[in-house]
């Protein structure tokens, strides 16, 4: 059964999270938390081994400067399957995960066998997490069973790797579609076998389609996660991706998670930001809180 979603009140509630005043201690703590939740991402056709190695270095040690207590590493580095091996080697022993997009990212417009093979290869290369895209064509034409079956097969192909299911909400357009796709994705992933907390995420966007993550879309997805938790006691993770560029925005998202799903979800195991430029803005704010000065762009490594 499709759940009804009403845009007016979703937007009103989503806006309320941006009115929270996060200052002093809670700001520092929130920014550190946000940093630890970032999936540092590079998904360009021109990505090189060198760029990935440099990104991995930043992932482990986001800033070379002195700051106490020392800054956390980010959660993961997210790359195309062909670069998983490079990332795996660079991150060895650091605790930072390797996430790989797969299933014919970003469009998913490939035969299922090719998409599954994409997943298998990425896992073989050492990916800890797979970010898959759903078949939006099938979803929008109402072939829900087909979408669900594909998600199930991808999850099976993942083996022990965690799965993040990208809905590409910018293409789904309505919040009702977002909610339906969220429910469908979670149920489909569960149909492949029991889910441990944080083993499956739902994710807003590829970052290749505009609009990417927004607060209202994320709120509707969090509601779906809450409903599934109420029903089963299983904690599904959430990853907004694309469009979150500032430290302030990241705090708004953390406020939203805290006030909906609660503190239990405030961990990289259950919440991630898919972003690249966010890391440096978070760092800039953290360094400013530490030193009282804003730091120049060139003082941070590029992400």
């Amino acid at each position, binding site marked *: 059964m499709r759940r009804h979603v*009403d845009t*007016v009140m979703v937007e009103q509630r989503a806006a309320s999270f941006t009115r929270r005043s996060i200052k002093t201690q809670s700001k520092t703590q929130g920014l550190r938390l946000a940093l630890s939740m970032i999936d540092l991402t590079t998904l360009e056709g021109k990505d090189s081994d060198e760029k990935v190695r440099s990104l991995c270095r930043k992932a482990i040690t986001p800033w070379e400067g002195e700051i106490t207590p020392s800054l956390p590493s*980010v959660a993961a580095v997210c790359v195309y399957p062909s670069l998983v091996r490079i990332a795996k080697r660079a991150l060895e022993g650091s605790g930072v995960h390797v996430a790989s997009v797969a299933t014919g990212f970003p469009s998913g417009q490939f035969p299922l066998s090719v998409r599954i093979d994409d997943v298998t290869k990425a896992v073989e290369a050492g990916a800890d997490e797979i970010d898959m895209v759903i078949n939006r064509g099938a979803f929008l034409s109402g072939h829900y069973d087909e979408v669900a079956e594909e998600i199930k097969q991808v999850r099976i192909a993942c083996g022990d790797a965690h799965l993040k299911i990208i809905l590409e909400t910018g293409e789904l357009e309505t919040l009702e579609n977002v909610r339906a796709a969220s429910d469908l994705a979670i149920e489909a992933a569960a149909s492949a076998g029991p889910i441990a907390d944080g083993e499956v995420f739902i994710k807003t966007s590829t970052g290749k389609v505009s609009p990417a993550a927004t607060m209202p879309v994320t709120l509707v997805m969090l509601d779906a996660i809450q409903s599934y938790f109420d029903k089963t006691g299983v904690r599904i993770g959430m990853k907004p991706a694309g469009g979150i560029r500032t430290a302030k925005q990241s705090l708004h998202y953390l406020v939203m998670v805290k006030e909906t799903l609660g503190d239990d979800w405030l961990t990289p195991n259950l919440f991630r930001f898919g972003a690249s430029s966010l890391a440096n803005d978070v760092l800039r704010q953290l360094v400013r809180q530490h030193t009282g000065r804003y730091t120049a762009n060139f003082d941070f490594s590029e992400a």
Partner: protein
Amino acid sequence: MATETTTNTPSASWEYSAAPERFPISIEETHKLFIDGKFVSPKSRKWFATTNPATDEKLADIATAGAADVNTAVLAAKKALPKWSKLPGSERAKYLYRIARRIQERAREFAVLETLDGGKPIKESRDVDVPLVAQHFFYCAGWADKLEYAFPGREVQPIGVCGQIIPWNFPLMMAAWKLAPALACGNTCVLKPAETTSLTALRLAEVLQEVELPAGVVNIVTGAGDTGKHLAEHKSINKLAFTGSTGVGKMLMRNSAGTGKRLTLELGGKSANIIFADAAIDQAVEGIVSGIYFNQGHVCCAGSRLFVEEPILEEVIQKLTHRMKSLRVGDPMDKNTDVGAINSRAQLQTIEQYIKTGIAEGGQLHEANNQQLPSKGNWCNPCFFTDIQPSHTIAREEIFGPVLSVMTFRTPEEAITRANNTPYGLAAGVWTDKGSKVFEVAKRLEVGIVWCNSYNQFDAASPFGGFKESGFGREGGMQGLKPYVKLV
């Protein structure tokens, strides 16, 4: 491979640090009456204290207007009337625009003062009350020179001297709702704020001086019920506008009968929030919360009776309980506070009495939000009751606090019958995804305002007012001008 995540991960418990509003504000030790453009000491020689309901600290002494003071104020308004009412509408509009702009410029000061004196969260006085106040003056300013278009084919004349008595739940906003349309239509006013919340009205008087509003056009007399009585019974009042309890409203109506005074009343409510099984439930829960816990439930149109279609009752209760955990109750001056202090000790006692009655009559009390409340001040945890029937006291009488009665229904017919089974008729909420059902139900609810898939939405352009014992007359919108004009 599912390894545990990174080292030195920050701990998961994340609390918001205190975020006090620090805008510096000065409050005079004594506040005089505002009569004929000047602040004057009361002839009554009596004063009363106003306190901060969140701390019990005294904020200032306020003058008590006795019969002689009220008389002076009414006469000042009467004296100012001929000149003011003959000003071209476009000139009156200039004053109203100036007032609106000055309120915007001093918005933060007004918000802080409103919160200090009334106990509502700074978030609400800043984001809701004060912006709506400015909007109301802007809106009415726009009408001042277009009155003949509001009432086509009729000649529009002012009524005369208006006595206006307002409540303590939205002190400045109620002052704006009363003054702006009256002034736009060429009337002069004597306004009496509620005794627990006079400060923002008196600060508005400063604004009126700043914009050089002609003396006597607006007079503000402070005091309790006696002051209101003197005002209501004054022979030179041509119109009386009252917002407050149904009991007082009935008395005013009795006493003004046969005097020729025009009367509008905006009284109590026991509004129904009706949630159908085909509603967007997560958003409906949001509507329940903003319907009853907004402004500590001190809202005449609060959605204090919740009717849920039976199949979704359990889910709604579960979601409501969960949602209430994130309501932050406490210091109204903290920018992250959602529910502030109860406006007065007397009101707190009333609410507590109703909660006791609810329990004694067999209701099940749910206090989903078990936060430590401050030791000083007037506090009430937001709560709701289940196992309630429409015949229970708490489901019939207006509580004016953060107390919700949850009831059920099975068919639209039953929902409508139950919702209408009340002496009140102010507002209602209807939650369903089915458009035809919205219109069918809304049409049959005996109330002045129906919000569909939302609640407590206000706009200066939208008329507000009730049916049955919730009063008559409208405020806001084109309809809000009508109580302030004589049509010939």
